[in-house]
């Protein structure tokens, strides 16, 4: 409390209605982790039904087909919008951006608090849909009409209205957040923090906000029309009333594909932040990475229809969208190769954050490579809506949200809470997750290529799927162990928060600004004077320096060398 300009604070102002960006980050972090538990429970129930069809799932009961549809819908919605977004976008942006650029707080602290509480409201609205008449929405997490536009198809009315409401509130919340992150980034960098001295994590979090910012509007427009279809009797998406169901798909995926990068880019940013620290080398190709991210962002707005190759849209559109989709893999390939080159000949330390970072690299690569099959219209016609797609996007989302997310959480844990987590438990957590993530989702590629369709509630109804009976049970067992593998994390997270050994300001010997502030940083972050930045963020192992790294706040410009150009 000694550095806190506001003195001791009452509980409600410190923990509930705080405007401190670090506290809001922790609030988002905890909310996202709680929602992840709900999402994991829905996954458990679905996997039980697929592995052991039509038997009672322990702790719940029989998963009937209508319940299965709700679980599929809620699992996707929760994991993408209520776990990925708060953990990777909100929690990380709030914590990392001001600290890394040397700001004392966000540009609009009260707006920041408001955005968190609107997000809580949207979580409540979404979870409430389990308890209203008709149950939770059951039209899939993409909400395709006419399933989502009219009660007659799924028997769900209030659940659907709540789903749209929850998404609307969440997007309002993240728009406020995005205004904050971008305005903070543009206006509050400390002297010397030029755009090309900004650390990778901040660059990629800003990229994520940009991707979200300019794609969310059309989805809100689509959602307004979907809501009117549901409550006011319009027919924008209902063919019988002259509507156009494909319109929703276009508006949804115009947002939906940038949304993939909203979740993916922060994970890449975390890993890029971790690789130099744990291999004691400058990042390879800093500028190439930043420009590649820019190129990927621009391309992400013109690839959306690759989600719709078999939707019945004009097939002549398939070729241009196939081409842009293949093109977008080029900037990401540049980034991945830069990551690999950053490791080459480094003094690699396999601490827990580094393990998660390397795990991200290995698993995401598979997700990216299988995307090439799905991005080619001709191959997609066969694979679309099978479990191959399910495996593909779990190999992209899971590494992003969990491998990238955990990399970030472990990396910044000492800064977040001022204490060290338990390294052994962290490594057990990593290996449990890494092994059983692959054991779960690798066979799903095989099952999907063999013709198992996604979203089916009972595979025993299809004779062609009899051959996958054992494999489905095995996948389910692996998935259950994967969920159980998170127990060491939960224990480690909460135990270390109170009992872990105290962390010093810079436990990883990293060069970016956040490691200058005390752990945990006080309100206002920097004490009386703001830091000044003299060098780039990754000055490791410089031949002209005795110490193996130069932090950004240490003036070495007179020595010349690489720092002057960074």
């Amino acid at each position: 409390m000694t550095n806190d300009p506001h003195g001791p604070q009452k509980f409600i102002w410190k923990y509930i209605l705080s405007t401190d960006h670090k506290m809001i980050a922790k609030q988002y972090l905890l909310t996202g982790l709680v929602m992840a538990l709900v999402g994991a429970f829905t996954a458990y129930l679905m996997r039980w039904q697929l592995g052991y069809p039509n038997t009672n799932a322990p702790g719940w009961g029989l998963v009937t087909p209508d319940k299965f549809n709700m679980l599929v819908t809620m699992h996707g919605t929760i994991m993408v919008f209520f776990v990925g977004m708060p953990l990777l976008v909100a929690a990380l942006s709030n914590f990392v951006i001001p600290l890394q650029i040397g700001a004392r707080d966000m540009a609009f602290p009260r707006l920041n608090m408001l955005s968190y509480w609107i997000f809580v409201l949207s979580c409540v609205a979404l979870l409430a849909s389990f308890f209203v008449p008709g149950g939770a929405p059951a039209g899939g997490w993409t909400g395709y009409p006419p399933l989502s536009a009219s009660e007659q198809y799924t028997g769900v009315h209030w659940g659907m209205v709540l789903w749209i409401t929850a998404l609307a509130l969440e997007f309002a919340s993240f728009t406020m957040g995005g205004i904050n992150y971008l305005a903070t980034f543009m206006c509050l960098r400390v002297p010397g923090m030029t755009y090309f001295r900004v650390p990778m994590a901040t660059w990629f979090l800003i990229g994520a906000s940009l991707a979200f910012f300019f794609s969310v509007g059309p989805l809100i427009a689509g959602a307004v029309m979907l809501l009117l279809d549901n409550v006011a009797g319009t027919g924008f998406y209902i063919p019988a009333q002259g509507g156009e169901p494909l319109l929703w798909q276009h508006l949804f995926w115009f947002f939906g594909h940038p949304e993939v990068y909203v979740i993916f880019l922060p994970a890449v940013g975390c890993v890029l932040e971790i690789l130099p620290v744990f291999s004691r080398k400058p990042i390879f190709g800093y500028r190439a990475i930043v420009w590649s991210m820019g190129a990927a962002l621009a391309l992400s707005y013109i690839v959306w229809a690759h989600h719709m190759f078999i939707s019945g849209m004009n097939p002549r559109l398939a070729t241009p969208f196939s081409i842009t989709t293949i093109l977008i893999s080029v900037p990401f390939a540049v980034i991945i190769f830069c990551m690999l080159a950053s490791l080459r000949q480094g003094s690699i330390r396999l601490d827990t954050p580094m393990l998660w970072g390397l795990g991200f690299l290995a698993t995401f690569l598979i997700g990216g490579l299988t995307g090439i099959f799905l991005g080619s219209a001709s191959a997609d016609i066969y694979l679309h809506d099978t479990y191959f797609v399910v495996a593909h996007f779990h190999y992209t989302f899971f590494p992003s949200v969990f491998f990238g997310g955990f990399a970030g959480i472990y990396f910044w844990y000492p800064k977040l809470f001022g204490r060290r987590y338990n390294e052994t438990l962290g490594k057990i957590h990593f290996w449990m997750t890494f092994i059983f993530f692959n054991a779960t989702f690798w066979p799903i590629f095989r099952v999907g290529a063999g013709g198992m369709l996604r979203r089916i509630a009972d595979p025993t109804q299809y004779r062609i799927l009899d051959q996958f009976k054992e494999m489905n049970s095995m996948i389910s067992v692996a998935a259950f162990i994967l969920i159980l593998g998170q127990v060491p994390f939960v224990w480690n997270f909460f135990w270390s928060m109170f009992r872990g050994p105290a962390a010093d300001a810079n436990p990883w010997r990293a060069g970016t600004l956040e490691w200058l502030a005390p752990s945990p940083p006080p309100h206002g972050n920097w004490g009386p004077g703001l830091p000044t930045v003299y060098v780039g963020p990754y000055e490791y192992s410089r031949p002209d320096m005795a110490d193996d790294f130069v932090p950004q706040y240490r003036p070495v410009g007179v020595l010349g060398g690489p720092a002057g150009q960074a």
Partner: protein
Amino acid sequence: MTAAPADSIASDRPAPLVSKVGMALFIGTEAMFFAGLISAYLVFRVGNPNWPPAGQPRLPVESTAFNTLILLLSAAFCHRAVSTLRAGLARSSAYWLGLTAVFGLFFLVLQGREWIRLVQFGLTLTSSVYGGLFYTLIGVHGLHVLAGTALVLYVLKRSVEGRYSAAYPLGVELARMYWNFVVALWPGLYFLVYLL
């Protein structure tokens, strides 16, 4: 306890640049929101050779043209509110703000009157996709005019309280940014929905 640092975050006056960047970003999402609605409108417009569909009433082109003029005038008043404030004439700036709000409200009242007539002629939200699109697109813009008017009235209240000056015109400038956006949308929407 150290004294509050010079660059303390605990300032009740937000910095002008960061606030304008924030407003510009917000307007950016709003613009994309309207882009979504307009593209939805165009999908139906281009896909239907008979537009408006048979049996649906024609839109009031002339009275809405007059209304367009009203809205454009209000934007000019809003500009005067900023320029007089910058010249140090806080009192006359408040008058121009009031005039902006009055013209904004007049636009809404006239729109409402036309809507009542259209409903009587049988154009409703559910009468056809045409009706649904009309009320959604024009209605959403109307809500933005309402929000903009509320913002102008709020700034007017603070202006009367003497919170703005030539040295600190930020609130009025932010209100003008938003009002400009709302007004600039309208001629485009008018052309698209009423004339095209």
